[in-house]
């Protein structure tokens, strides 16, 4: 298994001389002993160098699993092989960005989401906010023709949060949705 790097990854230097790039893979693990090691082995075995592991113990995904975010680096032509190896090993890969997204934010949308074409809302967010939708959770206790809420987790490039949120605000206005944004800045 490749050693975990001692140095934190520098966001501005995802590319190195050897053509190695940094990637983020988001996994969902079953809460059982040995699962983390089982999930990391396919990465190391297929030429990936582990940079950091963010193991959100105690923080369950909506499906009751433990989210793990792995930053790794490898030559671009090996990345697909790593993801395939993870999937072959039975690891649930939620997101395998071929790009390195530096930040993740969640927003909550409230309104007549279904009537206002939720899938169009999501594609507009991806296009106009330059983001990748990583996870979506919808709650419609009054039925889909009433006011419902959705939490959307987005991956965006480092330093682009403000612009992305501005784009999402505009989409919210267009679609008459209330956008509950994360509070950025400070140590909120």
């Amino acid at each position: 298994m490749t050693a975990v790097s001692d140095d934190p990854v520098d966001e501005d230097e995802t590319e190195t001389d050897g053509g190695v790039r940094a990637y983020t893979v988001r996994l969902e693990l079953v809460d059982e002993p040995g699962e983390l090691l089982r999930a990391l082995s396919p990465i190391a075995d297929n030429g990936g160098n582990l940079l950091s592991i963010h193991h959100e113990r105690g923080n369950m995904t909506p499906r009751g699993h433990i989210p793990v975010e792995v930053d790794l680096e490898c030559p671009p032509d090996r990345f697909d092989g790593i993801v395939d190896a993870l999937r072959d090993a039975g690891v649930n890969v939620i997101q395998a960005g071929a790009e390195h997204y530096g930040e993740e934010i969640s927003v909550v949308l409230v309104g007549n989401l279904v009537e206002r074409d939720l899938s169009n809302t999501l594609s507009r967010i991806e296009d106009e906010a330059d983001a990748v939708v990583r996870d979506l959770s919808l709650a419609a206790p009054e039925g889909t023709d009433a006011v419902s809420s959705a939490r959307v987790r987005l991956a965006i490039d480092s330093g682009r949060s403000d612009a992305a949120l501005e784009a999402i605000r505009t989409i919210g206005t267009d679609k008459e949705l209330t956008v509950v944004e994360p509070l950025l800045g400070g140590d909120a």
Partner: protein
Amino acid sequence: MQLAILGAGDVGRSVADLAGEYGHDVVALADSTTAAVDDDGIDIAGALERKAGDEPLGSSDPTDVFDADYDVLVEATPTTLGDAEPGFSHVKRALEADRHVVLANKGPVAERYEELRALEADSAGSIRFEATVGGAIPVLSTIEDSTPQAVTAARGVLNGTANFILTRMAAEGLDYEHVLAEAQDLGVAEADPTFDVDGTDAALKFVILANVLADGGFSLEDATVEGIQNIPGSALDLAAEDGRTIRLIGEATRDGVRVGPRLVPENGPLAVTGTRNIVQIETRNAGSLHSSGRGAGGPETATAVLSDVGRLPPL
């Protein structure tokens, strides 16, 4: 100091009640119809008892307050928007008579800040208004001590009613209307809670903060304000799946004022519960400072008024 108190609501009455403890005399106390005035110090207990029994505070006219021998006018009449009257005229009259003014009334400071500062510049008296932002929490004095130039932003929760409603919605999985009715039963929310839940009350406080940071330039109409009326219980449930919750958060910088429901970490400093308030002051040289406490209430807000009185120079 000799205090003249305009306004005999929770705050005005508490200032009168606590003034002696802080070493000050009350020479006048007025509500909108009558006043008790005595240059040797009014009978505070008697006046408060009469007020409690719906009797006139005293035998004088409210405008007689300005003829009393006072050092500090405490302006604790209800907050009004737009021209912020009659509060603004009260402040003007006291400053023109070269007296100090301590405001608990948000209206003049949020809506007519530059005019207040111009009047102050021509007066021997000064104005202070700690009580207008965050009740008992020392927000403005903290900014003053850090110097406003070194403060880059102020953020936080400055409306207890909205915070109470969101906290209960998140904890009990209840909807807005249900919790609002409960808050009204408990006396946490007013019969007409509009200003609290539509964000106006919080916005006034953050406008005041922006005015202090930028030395003026803001009024309520410059603020971007959203309330919590459209937030269903399900939105709070979804936020909780991610370890977050929703709070009515205000932000003031030199560039603007924004108030609205925002996602904050569930266990983070800004996720205060119940009617508690919190302010985060972001400084250039000292990181973030957090102060939390009771943002409303008669005795709580009166302590802020009396701290201000204590900071005033002798006339």
